[in-house]
């Protein structure tokens, strides 16, 4: 489809280039901005536009995940994390920007150099379309009998990988719960975002004020606060850094 000669450009190609151009513009806007709220929102926009681009590349499952995780949940998680920080990021002095700029230029040049070795889009001889991938496509219909090959590869042929991913998500949740606590009350911490003082003592009591019904779970909350004593140092260090 994309191989047509330059004589006539398909509408889908115009759409692809348009979406990629929007991605570049949004990325520059994210880098230039100082308001964290706008940055988080633009990250959601970036994810949504890349999801649209994935749809145009026929990668519907990836697009679905990108729209749900990237544009949906991670935007909200970044917002809730942002509420503990200042609303504006401080400008970085020019002297500290030279190192990162050099790294970006070198990495970008290396990637542009590698583009020449990549197979053409949709090429039948590309690695994705020749070895094990073509085998999955041929065998799913007779071995698993489900129409969506992506699900067959994800859950059955590559079941080990998906198990690993599930454990990674479990570990991420465990890490957050150990550091912050289920109700955000683990360890001793205090911060002053926007001049408003918040600390471990204010967070749980706030909750009790708002909902007296929650007090039926107080024994569990007590164990929550008592357990993760080891995280005290880390949490404190982060807040003062």
């Amino acid at each position, binding site marked *: 489809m994309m191989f047509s000669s330059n004589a006539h450009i398909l509408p889908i190609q115009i759409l692809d280039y348009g979406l990629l151009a929007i991605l570049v513009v949004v990325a520059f806007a994210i880098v230039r901005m100082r308001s964290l709220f706008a940055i988080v929102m633009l990250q959601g926009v970036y994810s949504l536009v890349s999801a649209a681009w994935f749809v145009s590349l026929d990668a519907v499952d990836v697009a679905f995940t990108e729209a*749900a995780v990237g544009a949906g949940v991670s935007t909200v998680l970044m917002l809730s994390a942002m509420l503990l920080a200042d609303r504006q990021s401080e400008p970085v002095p020019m002297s500290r920007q030279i190192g990162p700029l050099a790294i970006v230029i070198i990495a970008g040049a290396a990637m542009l150099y590698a583009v020449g070795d990549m197979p053409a889009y949709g090429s039948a001889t590309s690695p994705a379309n020749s070895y094990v991938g073509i085998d999955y496509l041929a065998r799913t219909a007779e071995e698993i009998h489900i129409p969506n090959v992506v699900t067959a590869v994800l859950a059955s042929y590559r079941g080990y990988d998906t198990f690993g991913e599930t454990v990674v998500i479990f570990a991420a949740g465990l890490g*957050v719960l150990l550091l912050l606590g289920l109700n*955000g009350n683990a360890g001793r911490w205090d911060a002053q975002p926007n001049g408003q003082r918040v600390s471990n003592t204010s967070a749980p009591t706030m909750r009790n004020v708002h909902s007296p019904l929650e007090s039926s779970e107080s024994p569990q909350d007590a164990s929550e606060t008592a357990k993760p004593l080891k995280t005290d140092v880390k949490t404190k260090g982060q807040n003062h850094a």
Partner: protein
Amino acid sequence: MHDPHVLLRVVSKFLIPLIALFALYVQFHGDYGPGGGFQAGVILASSVILYALIFGLPAAKLAFPPRWIRIGMTLGVLLYGGTGVFSFILGGEFLNYGVFAHDPSHGQHYGILAVELGVLCTVASVMVAIFYAFGSRQAETSNEDW
């Protein structure tokens, strides 16, 4: 007295059950169309998060109690690993679902269903857990604060 968010509350009260229902559709329709445990888990979690955003965190903690999180995230991993161990016991390799039924392709169906259910439990619980952990840390944001 006058609630400035009344429109948001009415509309989202109508939308939240539909979002949760759509998560189940994505979960059980993953064999036939795009979707699966990861996407369904995130969508289910986003319905809880939307509820928390509109009606406040304490209300959300009554609807989806924090103790479900620890059970859910552990249960998901155990369900996935347990499916693998179960296929061991029935004489197959780890995570080889073909041994679950006489017809191997039926066994694959059951295995994929169990495994995706495990992914759903873990992903939904962890997403809500991260939101609760961060969201509980700050004071209520006033309307002018943004």
